[in-house]
């Protein structure tokens, strides 16, 4: 506690603040935290629906992600089985208990084995349902919890993310507002903004995929 008082006291003296006559500064801070105003939002993502979705796919593919699209949730299991097969991966994946995932007709996907829960060492593919997408940068936004455990996006060899087409926003700010609407100020433990598969350029600035996280990222747009 003493360190906190020392540091804050030093800052106040340096700023020439008298803590007992500090109402104006306190108001300014409270107001800014309440208002959480937006700064310049790039025009890039401000597009009609289909063009926005196209931008999302283009931006993600530019950073080595792959994308696909299905018209309804019922098509997801077969689309995922086909994707894993095309990539030469074992026909199994792990997912959380998101009701949208629970309700899918997994039996249609034939040999696809679907496990649930947080990721385990040796998992080849992890599946999460995104909270939203951001067209501006090709980013998927996932939130932690039993519905979609965080580790599913990081531990398996391949990360697969489902993004509902109508949640793909033009910009990051729209998604921040949606998070606030859904969770208030109590954000989930982890909010992940994911833009492509894991990479490193630490060896001679040579870009390599699959540093620690997934070697590949596939985003399947639903709707």
């Amino acid at each position: 506690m003493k360190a906190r008082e020392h540091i804050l006291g030093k800052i106040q003296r340096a700023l020439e603040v008298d803590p007992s006559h500090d109402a104006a500064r306190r108001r300014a801070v409270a107001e800014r935290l309440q208002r959480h105003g937006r700064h310049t939002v790039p025009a890039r993502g401000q597009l009609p629906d289909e063009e926005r979705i196209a931008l999302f796919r283009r931006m993600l593919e530019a950073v080595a992600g792959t994308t696909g699209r299905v018209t309804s949730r019922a098509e997801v299991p077969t689309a995922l089985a086909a994707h894993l097969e095309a990539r030469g991966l074992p026909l199994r994946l792990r997912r959380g208990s998101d009701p949208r995932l629970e309700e899918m007709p997994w039996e249609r996907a034939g040999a696809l084995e679907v496990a649930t829960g947080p990721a385990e060492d040796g998992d080849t593919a992890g599946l999460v349902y995104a909270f939203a997408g951001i067209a501006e940068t090709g980013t998927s936004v996932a939130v932690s919890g039993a519905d979609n455990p965080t580790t599913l996006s990081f531990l398996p060899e391949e990360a697969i993310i489902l993004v509902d087409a109508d949640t793909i926003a033009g910009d990051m700010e729209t998604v921040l507002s949606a998070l606030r609407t859904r969770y208030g100020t109590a954000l989930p433990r982890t909010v992940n903004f994911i833009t492509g598969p894991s990479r490193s350029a630490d060896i001679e600035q040579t870009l390599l995929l699959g540093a620690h996280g997934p070697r590949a990222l596939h985003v399947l747009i639903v709707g």
Partner: protein
Amino acid sequence: MDVTSPAFKENAARALDDAQLQRALGNIRHGFVEKRRVAADALPEFEQLRDEAKAIKDHTLAHLDLYLEAFCETVEARGGTVTFAETAYDARRAVLDICREHEAKTVTKAKSMVSEEIELNRYLKKKGIAPVETDLGEYILQIRDEAPSHIIAPAIHLNRDQIEADFRRVHTHLPNERDLAEPATLLGEARTILRQKFLTADVGVTGANFLVAETGSAVIVTNEGNADLTQSLPKVHIVVASIEKVVPTLEDAATLLRVLARSATGQDMSVYTTMATGPRREGDPDGPEAFHVVLVDNGRSGMIGTDFQEMLRCIRCGACMNHCPVYHAVGGHTYGWVYPGPMGSVLTPSLVGVDQAGQLPNASTFCGRCESVCPVRIPLPKLMRHWREDEFARHLQPRAARTGLGAWAFLARRPRAYRMLTGLAARALSLAGGTKGRLSSLPLAGGWTKHRDLPAPAPRTFMADWKARRGA
């Protein structure tokens, strides 16, 4: 980390003669600069975003005490704890105490410059806790027992063959005849080894790019995903961050993120941007059970209210060093402490003292490229000039430099003598340059001409030329 900044000159001479290093430094000139330019050009709003990023930081610093208080409140409301640390010792001690409280034996770490500053690894090791760096570059440096030479590309001073030799030396459990000729095979080997470390660590330590007062979140950016495995697998997540990392709101963080990745690596967005808020919630099947933030001052509060407050805007993108001709020539280790390049030349004297680091702000050509690319518009050349003045006022420079400056000042106040002497010098150097127009050696400037030729000046000074033309 030991400060070798007073030996800058010797460090620089060694760096210039180091063929391996010079080869590696070529990668910066060709990579980062072009990537940043392309990313900035692709976003029409980029310059405006830089102005806003600067304003966000200025506002926060002017209310830093209040935003730190707000951040503490929100972290605690989400079930986390905040510890303030006045010094480097207090900070590493705070991390150790948390580790001991949880009976930790091993700690995974994501890349964090402030953890270098507080010498966390050395301390934990001494206290019987094994820290493992998980960023690929930092892992390479840890097995070499070396410090980072760049704030975002820590192993930029190394070449592939050096890394191969280190892996063969340290990973002795693997067959000797394995093929490590490609960077990808090196990465694969590190990935396999670190995977086990991630899965068994008791505590994960990360830095933070931003701390959000509104939500109590730590925003952590990586491309590898190592910070995410570091913070989501162990039962404890410790964030070590300096006090100026706090920003008011999520929207403020969003604007800063837009300029950060573009300035650093030329990406529109880093691969993984993660907002971590408190420990795992009831019903969460993964994530840490405890969340601690250690807020490090270590000299920063002393910069507030001074000329150097502007330096606290820095978001550690590395653009200034990527564009610095001095950094390109001598690399990061030459600067002798944690922070190299122009930002280090301003920050290091603030944090370790100008008496130790006075040579750093002198190691600048004042070309101004650093300021021109700084996403938060820190006037780095101006701040380096402040340090030079401070150093001069405190009589810290060597006698030769003071005498030289004194002689120059004497002449500068006597324009006629100054013009006559510079006119003579220009003519003499121009003649000496001959038809090549270059000088390969020069008395009193051997340090310069040893590594490159000095272009010979025009035979007439600008003033003389101007006068002649006006007369004509």
